[in-house]
């Protein structure tokens, strides 16, 4: 990655970014009680005395959540350590106990690494467990707590298990930050611990941003930016904030350590809390929970169940696809994201054309990912074979695939049932001749060497045959007629 700098009036500046990513775990139940962990339900229906923090209630740690947290730690190359829970004390209406149970000085996962797609290693300081808060909606005013007429609180999210992944301040550009979150997201999805949906808040990112003179050693004063709900917000907020800091410093000012809020509409950050106003969280060990020290056998079980990570899976696909392009990289990303790479690998192994397998998997099969993951690679291979041989046109192959995913069966039988018979070559020849006869001007230009007209003629043939013709064969036929 080329070096990213901000050019100010006094010289070049480098930005330093560290990210804190909160990941909601895909457990069936909450972290400390048996309430369903579900997004989008009727407010305050997935609640009980524990996640409402009613007097007398006590937390009991969700075993599955610990396993997912350990899977995340393992995927990030962290060391899994004996850990404990603390209480982080501050008042907020959507936090029912007015403290959050979190891991503090003894996190479960420490010292890992995430390698960006371009090969840059980014340090992972820790990945610890904690509980989510409820969700407050401020009514009236500008939607923030100050100036609101009243607020509504939904505690369905209260007690949902989170893992907070804290990166080292190793990121040096907005684009790297995007790349980090995007890769982290892929890893989290691959562990099965997350659905990776930023728009639903299952992944939430806070960015610590500072700037320093290019080539400098010491870190500048950082600001923490909250409310980054998409990769786009993340990039824009880092760009804005780093420029703001550079301008401030170049004017002879100084950056105050503070928490800042990203306003997506205005495209700027604004101060939420200064360092002086920062909460004193009064952390102390949570007496209602016992320390969490996973025995080696348990860790081994989790590690054994962990599948291949995105980087390994990308490598596996790349080795099958040969030379890459941006389009292929996108297909690879989609296929891995949806967990269709096992299907792709098995289908290619059965002898099917690799590029065609990728294209159909990333474009069509991706529309029905659940069904696609269940698809028999042999059947998928048969379909690709029919298309590659020209027996089915691309349009027909897509239709057969749709049917295959919905109802199953053998691709050849489905094609028959749908009336997709390959066009006999004399029938195709007759159609081509008719198209040439009906478009003499275009034909002359084509014969004269204007290859762009080929697409026009091909389109006409496809229309006449209602998509039953194989495009490759038509192109060949046109070329041979041109002589």
């Amino acid at each position, binding site marked *: 990655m080329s070096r990213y700098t901000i050019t100010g009036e006094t010289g070049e500046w480098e930005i330093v970014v560290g990210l804190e990513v909160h990941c909601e775990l895909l457990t069936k139940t909450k972290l400390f009680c048996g309430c369903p962990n579900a997004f989008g339900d009727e407010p305050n229906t997935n609640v009980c*005395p524990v996640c*409402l*923090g*009613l*007097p*007398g*209630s*006590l*937390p*009991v*740690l969700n075993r599955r959540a610990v396993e997912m947290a350990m899977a995340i730690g393992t995927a990030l190359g962290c060391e899994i350590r004996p850990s404990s829970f603390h*209480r982080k*004390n501050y*008042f907020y*209406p959507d936090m*029912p*106990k*007015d*403290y959050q149970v979190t891991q503090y000085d003894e996190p479960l996962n420490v010292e890992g690494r995430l390698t960006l797609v371009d090969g840059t290693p980014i340090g992972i300081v820790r990945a610890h467990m904690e509980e989510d808060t409820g969700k407050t909606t401020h009514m009236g005013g500008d939607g923030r*707590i*100050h100036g609101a007429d009243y*607020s509504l*609180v939904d505690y369905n999210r209260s007690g949902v298990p989170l893992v907070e992944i804290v990166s080292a301040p190793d990121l040096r550009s907005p684009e790297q930050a995007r790349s980090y979150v995007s890769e982290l997201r892929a890893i989290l999805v691959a562990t099965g611990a997350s659905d990776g949906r930023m728009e639903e808040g299952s992944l939430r990112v806070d960015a610590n941003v500072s700037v320093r003179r290019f080539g400098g050693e010491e870190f500048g004063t950082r600001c923490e930016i909250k409310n980054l709900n998409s990769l786009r917000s993340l990039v824009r907020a880092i760009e804005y904030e780093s420029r703001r800091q550079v301008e401030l410093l170049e004017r002879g000012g100084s950056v105050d350590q503070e928490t800042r809020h990203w306003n997506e509409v205005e495209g700027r950050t604004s101060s939420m809390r200064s360092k002086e106003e920062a909460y*004193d969280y*009064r*952390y*102390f060990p949570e*007496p*209602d*929970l*016992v320390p969490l020290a996973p025995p080696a056998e348990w860790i081994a079980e989790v590690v054994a169940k962990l599948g291949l990570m995105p980087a390994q899976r990308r490598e596996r696909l790349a080795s099958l696809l040969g030379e890459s392009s941006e389009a292929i990289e996108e297909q690879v990303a989609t296929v891995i994201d949806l967990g269709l790479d096992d299907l792709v690998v098995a289908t290619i192994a059965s002898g099917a054309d690799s590029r065609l397998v990728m294209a159909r998997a990333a474009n069509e099969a991706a529309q029905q990912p659940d069904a696609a993951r269940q698809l028999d690679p042999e059947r998928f291979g048969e379909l690709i074979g029919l298309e590659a041989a020209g027996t089915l046109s691309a349009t027909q192959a897509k239709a057969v695939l749709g049917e295959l995913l919905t109802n199953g069966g053998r691709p050849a039988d489905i094609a028959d049932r749908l009336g997709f018979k390959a066009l006999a070559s004399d029938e195709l020849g007759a159609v081509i001749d008719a198209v040439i006869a009906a478009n003499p001007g275009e034909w002359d230009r084509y014969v004269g060497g204007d290859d762009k007209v080929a697409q026009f003629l091909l389109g006409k043939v496809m229309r006449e045959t209602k998509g039953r013709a194989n495009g490759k064969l038509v192109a060949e036929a046109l070329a041979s007629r041109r002589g």
Partner: protein
Amino acid sequence: MSETEAFAGGALAIAARVRSGELSARVVTEAALEEIAASEPLLHCFNTITAERALAAADAVDAKVLAGEDPGPLAGVPVALKDNLCTRGVPTTCSSRILEGWRPPYDATVVARLSAAGAVSVGKTNLDEFAMGSSTETSATGPTRNPWDPARVPGGSSGGSAAAVAAGLVPLALGSDTGGSIRQPAALCGVVGLKPTYGLVSRYGLVAFASSLDQIGPFALTLADAAATLQVIAGHDERDSTSLAHPVADLATELRRGVEGLRVGVVADFLSEASGSCAAAVRQAADALADAGALVKEVAIPELLHGLSAYYLIAPAEASSNLARYDGVRYGLRVDGDDVQEMNARTRSAGFGDEVKRRIMLGTYVLSAGYYDAYYAQAQRVRTVILRSFARAYEDCDVLLAPTTPSVAFPIGAKTADPLEMYLSDLFTIPTNLAGHPALSVPFALGEEGLPVGVQVLAPALGEGPMLRAGAALEAVAAPGARGPVRPQLGGPLAGVAR
């Protein structure tokens, strides 16, 4: 049937007669409810009396007996619950204004277990607000009076439960003990009070004061009744992560084992800190145990006297966090304000009493950035020292003997102006909580002004067996008249408030 007749022999005797069909649970319950109602104007043991529910529960027990089903080991026994134990649909106030109007949607595990054992809950007893106090005077509903002398406190914080058993209103009650809140009022009221090993009884549904110290336990007139109650409420609960998986010993058997060969250490360091009658009772108790065949010696554990200071850092620290949730947002009292912070502040200012506020401020302070190490962390180190010094003592002792309190019951109002003086009431009970050990107080003697004096038996974690053996031996030789029930003395300045 008179209440005295119905209650004869205590909880186990009632249960036996109810189980055999000789006595109906309804009759027992009606007698208890009548006594409670009559005593309330003078003693104020109860915040809530659940007459209808109690009668319905009693009828259910009687129906089981009639149907030949097992109604449980505590069938038909009226029981009073400290008002910091959650009871489904019944107000649970912690004697605080801040919980006004709140009815829990669930029963505490101990409440459910008592009910499953056939016990009949008759109401919720008064306590120091959020169990913070040693006299039941910090209650928002007014003080409970000691049935031995209504001008005096019953102790606290479980004063309502202790006084209710002492006055013979109920044969059984539950309390909670964070720094002595079961044992101290038991001693001042002349009843048995037992604080189990931390984790032996589930805390699920006990409104937390200081989570690492809180433990629920029984009050009764006899050790056998207390042990039977503990047997019912003890045992693993998957809803409490600090609940022990350890199987519970057969406590009734332990009670009958005697003290032959039992190694007893008398905590010398406490004797000099106790009043004449309280120290004398311990010496007498030691002699009695030796006579019964125990091997008695004095032990020095001076570190235990540091427990009080450590406790008043750890307990408020945990309390400041546990009590944060009373913010006016979800339940209980709300005093409106212009914004949420003001609403929080006004609610908490109006809802909490002075002692609770004092401890929240103390706890907030000791956990603050820059002070944590000097106070909270240091207190935890002292806690470790206390654990180690106990462990050393228990290398050659099975149980320890100590006074429960420094003095007999003091007059109402005597210590309210001086919190530190009040805190000293728990000097001898606090180390046990810091260590997570069990201890009990047995009514043993009569002291100054003819008031009861308790002797404390301490044991290592899960040492309930030896603890009960020593307790039973003391109960057998206790001074006649040293334990309840007592009829409150009417007359003097209190005659006006009597029924």
